[in-house]
């Protein structure tokens, strides 16, 4: 399943390298391209490939493989990419349980891993690593923003997330900033499709608000069932529960819902406008936050490549850490633990013509840092 685009890029790079010496760089992309979580991985891959294409950099070769959202497959792919493809950099993983299976092992082999999405807490604190750069967020961040936001209007919240590392980080993050009472805290199964039992508990709990983190198809199922259940308690969540990959399938049930994200289509900066235009033109759909983070990851790599050789690990790490690229999220710097310092916004789901999308209605945090950076001794 190697990308044809990558193959042709590689051929082109060979042709070009005959004239002037150019160092070829191999980037391994492990992401989810099949199964229920495929929409997220496809957006990640498409944005990454498009950023590489637009840069005109002919020296980059992509090795793209599908992890099917299974940790054991992701581990095998990483081994194969490191041992036999001899990739210089790894990236692409969407899900935190897969990242936990792959990243510690890869960075221990002195491979630089750049995360375009997953940011488990276990890799942000004491176990941080100089070879691990998270370009997206630390998992808790978006949820912390929603916890902060909820203080304004709500006193009794029911919280819900899947039982996996990012789900636990989610509820931990929410609780870190939320001051009201929790009337229910429920963990669901990863990949669960029916939420009737949980919705019944919400109805019975006397909550004045519901916070849920259910990425991908899980969020679609929950919102559709919630909208029909006759429960009228307002919902909120991180951007993942209401992003562009989910909204068309949820429909009008999502209108007006507040959610938190580091990025939105309408963020006013030049890089973002170019990104949204280019993505729409190439793929004929609106990008999601996964696409935005992946675009930034690609551009971060490109910025570092222009400064240092990927073979000189120390210089290349320093070039990455400088984060000298135009982020679609505006201001972007790395904290001491190689996780972002960035703004987190509150968005609202709106309708533009027939298309459901988000618009920014406020800023929850400016230059937000994660809670684990202090434990990182690097």
């Amino acid at each position, binding site marked *: 399943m190697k990308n044809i685009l990558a193959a042709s890029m590689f051929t082109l790079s060979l042709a070009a390298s005959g004239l002037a010496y150019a160092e070829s760089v191999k980037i391994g992309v492990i992401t989810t391209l099949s199964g229920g979580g495929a929409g997220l991985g496809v957006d990640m891959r498409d944005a990454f490939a498009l950023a590489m294409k637009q840069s005109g950099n002919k020296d980059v070769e992509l090795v793209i493989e599908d992890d099917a959202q299974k940790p054991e497959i992701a581990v095998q792919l990483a081994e194969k990419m490191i041992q036999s493809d001899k990739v210089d950099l790894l990236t692409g993983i969407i899900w935190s349980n897969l990242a936990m299976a792959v990243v510690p092992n890869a960075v221990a082999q002195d491979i630089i891993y750049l995360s375009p999405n997953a940011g488990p807490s276990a890799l942000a604190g004491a176990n941080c690593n100089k070879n691990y750069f998270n370009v997206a967020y630390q998992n808790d961040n978006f949820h912390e923003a929603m916890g902060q936001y909820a203080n304004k209007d709500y006193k009794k919240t029911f919280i819900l997330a899947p039982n996996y590392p990012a789900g636990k980080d989610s509820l931990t993050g929410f609780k870190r900033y939320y001051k009201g009472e929790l009337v229910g805290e429920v963990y669901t199964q990863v990949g669960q499709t029916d939420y009737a039992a949980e919705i019944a508990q919400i109805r019975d709990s006397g909550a004045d608000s519901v916070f849920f983190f259910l990425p991908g198809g899980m969020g679609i199922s929950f919102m559709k*069932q919630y909208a029909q259940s*006759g429960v009228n308690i307002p919902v909120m969540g991180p951007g993942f529960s209401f992003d562009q990959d989910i909204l068309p*399938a949820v429909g009008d049930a999502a209108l007006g819902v507040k959610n938190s994200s580091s990025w939105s289509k309408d963020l006013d900066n030049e890089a973002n406008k170019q990104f949204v235009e280019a993505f729409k033109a190439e793929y004929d759909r609106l990008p999601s936050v996964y696409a935005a983070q992946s675009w930034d990851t690609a551009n971060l790599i490109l910025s570092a490549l222009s400064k240092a050789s990927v073979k000189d690990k120390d210089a290349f790490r320093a070039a990455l850490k400088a984060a000298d690229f135009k982020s679609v999220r505006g201001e972007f710097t790395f904290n001491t633990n190689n996780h972002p310092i960035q703004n987190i916004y509150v968005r609202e789901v709106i309708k533009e013509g027939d298309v459901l999308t988000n618009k920014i209605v406020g800023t929850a945090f400016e230059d937000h840092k994660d809670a684990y950076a202090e434990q990182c001794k690097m």
Partner: protein
Amino acid sequence: MSLALLLEQVLNGLQLGVMLFLMAAGLTLIFGVMGLINLAHGSLYMVGAFACAAVAAATGSFWIGLVASLIAAAAAGAIMEMTVIRRLYDRDHLDQVLATFALILIFSEGTRWLFGSFPLYLDIPPLLQGAVPLPGGGQYQLYRLAIIGVGIAVALGLYLLISRTRLGMRIRAGESDREMIAALGVDIRTLYTVVFALGAALAGLAGAMVGALQSVQVGMGEPALILAFVVIVIGGIGSIKGALFGAILVGLVDTMGRFLLPKALALMMPAAQAGLIGAALASMLIYIVMALILAFRPSGLFAAQS
């Protein structure tokens, strides 16, 4: 915990149960009559959901979509039977499992190729939207009640079909002695195709009805398939009655476990921890029940004569 909540959860369990029954009935019928293990049954469920979503989007009517899902799944089932499955009846179960597993991959990638990786939109028809009041002050989603109704109607219809009609008589005869009914002049090949298409249509119906509640996406059939296998193993492979009881048992145990276990554990430990451990235990619960039933009734609750 209020009475209304308990009632609502019992209804949720029933609704999950009748959905599983629609899946399991086809699976167990096919196994009972033809001795075939069909892993691709979940793909037929997916075909039903996609057909319903695509047709509903094109025509604007869920009901036309529902009819389309029955037709599409039955047609897919009949084609599957005539091209692949027919060659597998005389092979052992390992060959059947391998071939039908290949069918899962073909159906999944084919659907992705046709519809893309992003979930499709399918909404509940206006007639069945909203919730109805329950005794005790609660409310319940009307659509889920309708699913329970459809499930009961299908169970009744299957019972009448099998016990009262000529086709049913042949199915029963096919279950007990294949060679004999062929010798009596019944066209066994057509009978097999009809039974397979019937099972497929039931799976497609389940997929279309659930599609309006969940996300219509590639791979949606496999989690339902695993539960359906648990159901037919509990109920006794080949028994429709077993499938009905097994499905309702699994539906109730799963729903009640998810709901009550964290609550029970919360009496002993902090709520956050109880939630985590309770959720983990609840996801194991139906398999524990299956293991217990198999320990005491190795061939299931209502074993068909073999």
